């Protein structure tokens, strides 16, 4: 690639590793994707929506050899995008940390707004990833913005520390930040995982000085996460131990110990040992911290991680490109956990430039068939619900001018219709926003689609209709706005026929074409 000179060395590292993998597997990568379509992809992944017509034009006008890097830098660093960038990543991380339903249940002390605020602030200032994790794991304070001891980071653990002696906090922290799946070992040794029941409870012991309390303030409810002395289950705070039962009925004892076996003082007195702070420090030294985030980010941009699922890095789980994975993880740590740098490395690398068209020379690279991904083409995937909403709402101005907070609220409400509970105590949820008939019905007839195809004054289509230009120009505008490409001849031909059927009512024809574009796989997919 022509731009290589200006790029960080990790881009070349990725390219070489992948090229080697393609050669070894007899794969030829797909050709490079068209620039405008690449632009659509990078907007979706970096700020959570497709580009507007004007933004696409701005990119197209840049004739320099570094136009792609310029765009990535613009989206990451230009003040115009700070808010949207922070909002997008806060949304992605809220869904990881508290789930899409977090804070929406009747008895919840989570403030979704508080979680989002903390995350938005963190991403807006590009807080180093390790600092963010440390804050989330060790947070104390209240969950709701505007309250005296407000600390939005507390929302992560607010509903996880109390039930079941903090079993959910144990399982979530180890899975989300260290890529270790321990939830089954709460009750028994895992059959094919190196984790033992003992380790689960040793990790759990870090959370036993912490509890959440509910605060009722008039009509609103929120929570406070507090540290306190822990007397231990044996009643001796100097040796604050916990007990757990093996499957054979024998009772064992556990003290805080990290996943690598490192122990800390056993005292339950906060003045002597703050267990969560100690856990935070130990996590900061763990290579699993680096690997988990690199894997998560790789999967965000390229559709699959180095492992599947991305939050299971145990030795039983096969890894694609293990050496590259190791090196990127080390480099990420050495680059001060700068997430924006990691984003540059990946978005500028060759696999991210490839077309999503599958060819005869790489069709065997199909992760949906259980193959480990080789990334020899860009894996087309459905947008997330948030990306789809944001793309329709912002790029097609379906909401008019409403604030980001209000947008987020409406969006969450819209997403909620696709969420279904599993009915267990662990708060698991299913997201049925997955390409089902319900989703098609929503895209056909839902309010958002109605707003997006409205021709009322002030709407996207109305503005377009008022502009100068032929109907063909306007159809072209629609294709570029929705699909980042120009219409093909046969598509223009359909538009012309529709104009005849609509008895030369251009607005009606544009409504029809825009509806068709928004409902197509080409629109709904990130490709």
């Amino acid at each position, binding site marked *: 690639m022509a731009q290589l000179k200006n790029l960080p060395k990790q881009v070349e590292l990725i390219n070489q590793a992948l090229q080697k993998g393609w050669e070894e597997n007899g794969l030829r990568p797909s050709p490079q994707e068209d620039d405008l379509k690449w632009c659509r992809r990078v907007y979706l992944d970096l700020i959570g929506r497709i580009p507007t017509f004007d933004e696409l034009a701005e990119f197209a006008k840049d004739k320099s050899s570094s136009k792609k890097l310029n765009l990535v830098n613009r989206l990451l660093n230009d003040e115009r995008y700070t808010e949207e960038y922070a909002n997008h990543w806060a949304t992605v991380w809220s869904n990881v940390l508290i789930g899409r339903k977090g804070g929406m249940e009747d008895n919840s002390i989570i403030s979704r707004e508080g979680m989002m605020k903390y995350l938005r602030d963190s991403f807006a200032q590009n807080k180093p990833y390790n600092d963010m994790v440390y804050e989330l794991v060790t947070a104390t304070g209240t969950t709701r913005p505007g309250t005296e001891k407000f600390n939005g980071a507390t929302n992560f653990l607010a509903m996880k520390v109390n039930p079941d002696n903090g079993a959910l906090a144990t399982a979530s922290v180890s899975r989300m930040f260290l890529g270790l799946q321990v939830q*089954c070992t709460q009750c028994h040794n895992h059959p094919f995982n190196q984790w033992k029941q003992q380790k689960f409870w040793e990790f759990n012991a870090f959370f036993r000085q912490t509890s959440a309390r509910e605060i009722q303030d008039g009509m609103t409810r929120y929570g406070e996460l507090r540290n306190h002395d822990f007397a231990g289950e044996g009643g001796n705070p100097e040796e604050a131990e916990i007990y757990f039962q093996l499957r054979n009925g024998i009772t064992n004892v556990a003290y805080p110990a990290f996943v690598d076996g490192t122990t800390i003082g056993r005292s339950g007195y906060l003045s002597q040992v703050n267990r969560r702070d100690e856990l935070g420090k130990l996590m900061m030294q763990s290579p699993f911290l680096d690997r988990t985030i690199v894997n998560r980010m790789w999967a965000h941009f390229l559709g699959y991680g180095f492992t599947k699922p991305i939050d299971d890095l145990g030795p039983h789980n096969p890894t694609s490109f293990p050496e590259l994975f190791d090196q990127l993880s080390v480099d990420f740590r050495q680059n001060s956990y700068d997430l924006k740098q990691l984003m540059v490395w990946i978005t500028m690398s060759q696999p991210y430039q490839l077309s999503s068209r*599958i060819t005869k020379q790489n069709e065997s690279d199909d992760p949906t068939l259980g193959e480990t991904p080789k990334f020899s083409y860009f894996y*087309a995937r459905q947008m997330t619900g948030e990306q789809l909403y944001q793309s329709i709402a912002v790029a097609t101005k379906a909401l008019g001018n409403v604030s980001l907070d209000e947008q987020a609220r409406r969006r969450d409400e819209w997403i909620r219709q696709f969420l279904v509970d599993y009915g267990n105590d662990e708060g698991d949820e299913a997201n049925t926003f997955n390409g089902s008939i319900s989703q098609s019905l929503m895209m056909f*007839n839902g309010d958002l689609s*109605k707003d997006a195809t409205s021709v009322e004054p002030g709407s996207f289509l109305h503005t377009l209709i008022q502009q100068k230009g032929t109907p063909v120009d306007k159809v072209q505008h629609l294709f570029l706005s929705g699909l980042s490409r120009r219409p093909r001849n046969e598509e223009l*031909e359909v538009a012309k026929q*529709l104009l005849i059927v609509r008895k030369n009512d251009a607005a009606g024809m544009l409504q029809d074409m825009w509806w068709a574009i928004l409902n197509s*796989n080409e629109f709904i997919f990130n490709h």
Partner: protein
Amino acid sequence: MWTNWANQRQFVTPHGMSRRHFATHLAGAATMLGASLSLGHSLRVHADTLKQNRKSCILLWMGGGPSSIDIWDLKPGTDNGGPFRTIATSGDAQISEHMPLMAKQMHHMSIVRSMSTREADHNRGRYYMHTGYVPDASIDYPSYGAVISHQLLSQRPDLQIPPFIAVGGASEGPGFLGMAYSPFNVTSNGRVRNLEASIGNERLMQRKIALSMIEDSFIGQRRGNSAIEHKKILEKTYDFLGSQQREAFKVESEPEEMKEMYGKNGFGQGCLLARRLVEAGAPFVEVDLGGWDNHDGIFQTLQRDRLPTLDKAMAALTEDLNQRGLLEDTVIVWMGEFGRTPRINAGAGRDHFARAWSVVVGGGGIKGGQAVGSTSEDGMEVVTEPYSSEDLMASVCKALGISLETTFTSRSGRPMKIANSGKLIKELFS
């Protein structure tokens, strides 16, 4: 039918077609739509013959892991027994005193008391019990709803509603069978969102031409399988929008006493909806009742809340299907992801337990009234031949007339026997 119409390629790629020719087709779309509606009517003439060969399955899914030791296989008077007593039923087995209505229906149903599985985590258990396979990162297996609707769809060529409907819960996905067999999720009041179009059918059909063109060319560029799946879902959506069978979702149109009989709560109305959907031809309906993850205070929760709800709805469903002559063609399955520990924990709850627990099945070709297998006095072990999720799935398939020799081929070419080669639970068919 709309679907057939869409398959005629010249409509979707009118490249080089003259204007007049194409306009004829656009106008024709409306005519074809009218034709499809009357075709629906003429099919109804044969509906009775079709119905004779139509099998269905209703899965009552107890999310969280139901305590079968307090419902179907009690151990009264032992340390693990808990406070509930047993009552006699119309079948051979005794069940919990808090299931008095089901007790009168048990001649239709059989309890399998010898389930022994290994997955005691919610997500893994749910997946395993729904598919007959343990989770495997390399391949997604199809769940009950997908397998059964895939197999039974040919019995109902006139079906225009989704074949696999999940009421009040998420169920599990279609795996390698693809999105066309994914669950259609509705709440228990049967309300389907976004059915009302703001434009007429004629205009919708005209839009469909433009949409198909974009859709098909994207597929033609080989963007992967999910782009193709998206198109299939679009076709099903058109079918659904144009169908009279949508009426089946209107559970509120049932008479008041019917609603009362099932119980005026989410699960009760969900079961009533399931009966309506089966009547309308749906091969598979799952109805979810959550709230069984009772780590603490289990007995109060069961007695006051879960069991009365379950008892009323399940008994009403069994009775209603029977009275309508549908029970002999409809298999009812009751299960969750696992059972609960016989030992009562310090918080008066029971934890996850997969080694020995019960499920209930009946209807279709299943012999009712029995308790199959048994557990040890303390409930900790299965003392007869243990049965697995695969075995249960194979037995349900058999009861629906689906051949156990059926083999699926995943897209990677891997052949897989239906129900993961499970063996029949023989007692259910003797």
